[in-house]
């Protein structure tokens, strides 16, 4: 367990009362609307705000405990923090910014070494050409990469990223997201990723904590939470669908398709490059799932998954979200009320879920 937290905080009308623990490795997303308290949690862990009561531990070290009277100063917490607005020191060069935390980590009594060497980090983030520049002249994406490098070089126990993509334009988001994915696989550092963008979380995170108005709504592996239709409906909005996680099980090169095996079936998707067994995460949008009562022929659709209707969720505008069980995996099909009546859809009915390969959205 990397971050173990149980805190209460009240500031005016806002009350935060959360308790959770995150896995020792990988990316844990703190997800919620603005005002849900996710950024506040980041600042509490970093020691920038003091909770009213409770405890905060990272890798077994107590950073705060009202019971034991412990409240470490921010500079002694060894939390790498990547702020939304980068916060590079404007009077220092990129190189001096990167070395700011590095130098201070060398001076620490425990002499903790940085996870990676300076040159390796510069390479990894592709910022070699920027070293002599000043932050004022960097683009948003460049600044954020430098900020990530600066935090990592300070040899932290855990990295907190507070909406690191929020200030970037759409094109840069993908770029930084790729860097974070690379960091995640190359460094064994646990990362807390604060975000309100479900697609970032689905692409990046291994587990997630869903916050709502200062308390935990749900917590667990991303593949589990984002395949629970009623939670997805609440947090991702209509039509997001569900997430399925599987492994690359076969290639159909002549047709440009790959086959993914997931608990409950196999699905063909547009070609994915990679070795067999590669972990793949797909989003199946609810409006792209068609229901059929029996096997069908003469359609272009590549996938017909046998499934069983579990539940009908009636939405507005005559739309119905049909929750399907496909083995242990959940799918959602958004259909009209008229279709429900015509096919006499009800819980327990066996159907086929038709999914176009090109409608699947590969997240990971």
């Amino acid at each position, binding site marked *: 367990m990397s971050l173990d937290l149980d805190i209460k905080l009240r500031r005016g009308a806002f009350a935060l009362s959360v308790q959770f623990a995150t896995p020792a490795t990988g990316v844990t997303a703190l997800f919620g609307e603005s005002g849900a308290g996710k950024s506040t949690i980041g600042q509490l862990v970093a020691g*920038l705000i003091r909770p009213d009561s409770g405890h905060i531990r990272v890798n077994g070290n107590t950073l705060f405990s009202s019971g034991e009277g412990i409240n470490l100063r921010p500079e002694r917490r060894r*939390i790498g923090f990547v702020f939304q607005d980068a916060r*590079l020191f404007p*009077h220092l060069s990129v190189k001096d910014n990167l070395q700011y935390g590095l130098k*201070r980590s060398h001076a620490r009594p425990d002499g903790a070494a940085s996870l990676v060497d300076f040159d390796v980090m510069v390479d990894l983030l592709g910022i070699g050409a920027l070293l002599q520049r*000043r932050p004022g*002249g960097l683009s948003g994406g460049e600044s954020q990469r430098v900020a990530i490098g600066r935090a990592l070089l300070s040899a932290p126990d855990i990295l907190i990223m507070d909406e690191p993509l929020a200030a970037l334009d759409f094109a840069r988001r993908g770029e930084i997201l790729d860097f974070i994915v690379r960091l995640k696989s190359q460094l064994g550092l646990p990362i807390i990723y604060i975000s309100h963008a479900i697609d970032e979380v689905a692409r990046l995170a291994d587990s997630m904590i869903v916050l709502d108005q200062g308390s935990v709504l749900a917590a667990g592996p991303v593949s589990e939470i984002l395949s629970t239709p009623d939670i997805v409906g609440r947090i991702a909005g209509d039509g997001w669908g569900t997430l399925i996680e599987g492994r690359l099980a076969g290639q159909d090169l002549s047709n440009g398709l790959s086959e993914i095996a997931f608990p409950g079936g196999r699905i063909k998707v547009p070609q994915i490059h990679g070795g067999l067994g590669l972990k793949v995460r797909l989003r199946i949008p609810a409006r792209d799932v068609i229901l059929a009562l029996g096997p069908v022929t003469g359609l272009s659709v590549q996938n017909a998954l046998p499934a069983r209707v579990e539940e009908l969720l009636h939405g507005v505008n005559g739309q119905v979200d049909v929750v399907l069980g496909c083995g242990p995996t959940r799918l959602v099909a958004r259909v009209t009320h008229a279709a429900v009546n015509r096919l006499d859809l009800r819980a327990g009915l066996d159907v086929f879920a038709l999914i176009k390969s090109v409608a699947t959205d590969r997240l990971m």
Partner: protein
Amino acid sequence: MIIDLTLTAGEVEAIGLSVIVASSACAIGLPIGVICALALSRGRFAGRVVLDGLVHLPLVLPPVVTGFLLLMLFGRTGPFGRWLEQTFGVHLAFTTSGAVLASLVMILPLITRQVRLALESIDPGLESAAASLGAGPFDRFCSVTLPLMSPGLASGLILGFVACLGEFGAVITFAASIPGETRTIPLAIYGALQAPDGDAAALRLAGLSILMGLSGLILAEVIGARLRRWVQGRERQA
């Protein structure tokens, strides 16, 4: 009318003394101004309002009153004056050190204001970032806060220096006008105007005052702009 531009020995002495007094007052005033600015903008203590008023008092009082108050406090019979004389054998009234003290008190509000403005323009997020990178409070102040407020420090220092050169009321009240001891440029001008044929001397020194004042303002502007460009991290135009 032809004016002799050659400075007399007494005038040169007044100029040298002005520079010494102004430099000393600024050198002592800057750290005090920084401490006052820090206390006023970040401190949360009961006497904050009192300190604020005290620092800014010379700005709203007639300088002569400030000089008189200094005389009451630091004069031979004043509480601080007596203590200083008994403990260190130092007396301030009617000495160069006294002129420095009077100038210092007059420019402290100026310096404090400039430093405080600079301090409050710094994004507090940068200090949080420095803390998360392992820098303690003093380290943060030296490596982040101080460099970022350097434009304010520089302009405060230069403006303070220029203001010192023109300080009259408080200095003449507390330190009098003793040639070579406390007679700075404005006091020398005043003295020249009192003499029957002092017009030329007054004009020379007045011209010099204008020159020094203007150069000070320009210098403050240039250095301030340079430092601002530096702390904002903008790169030099290629």
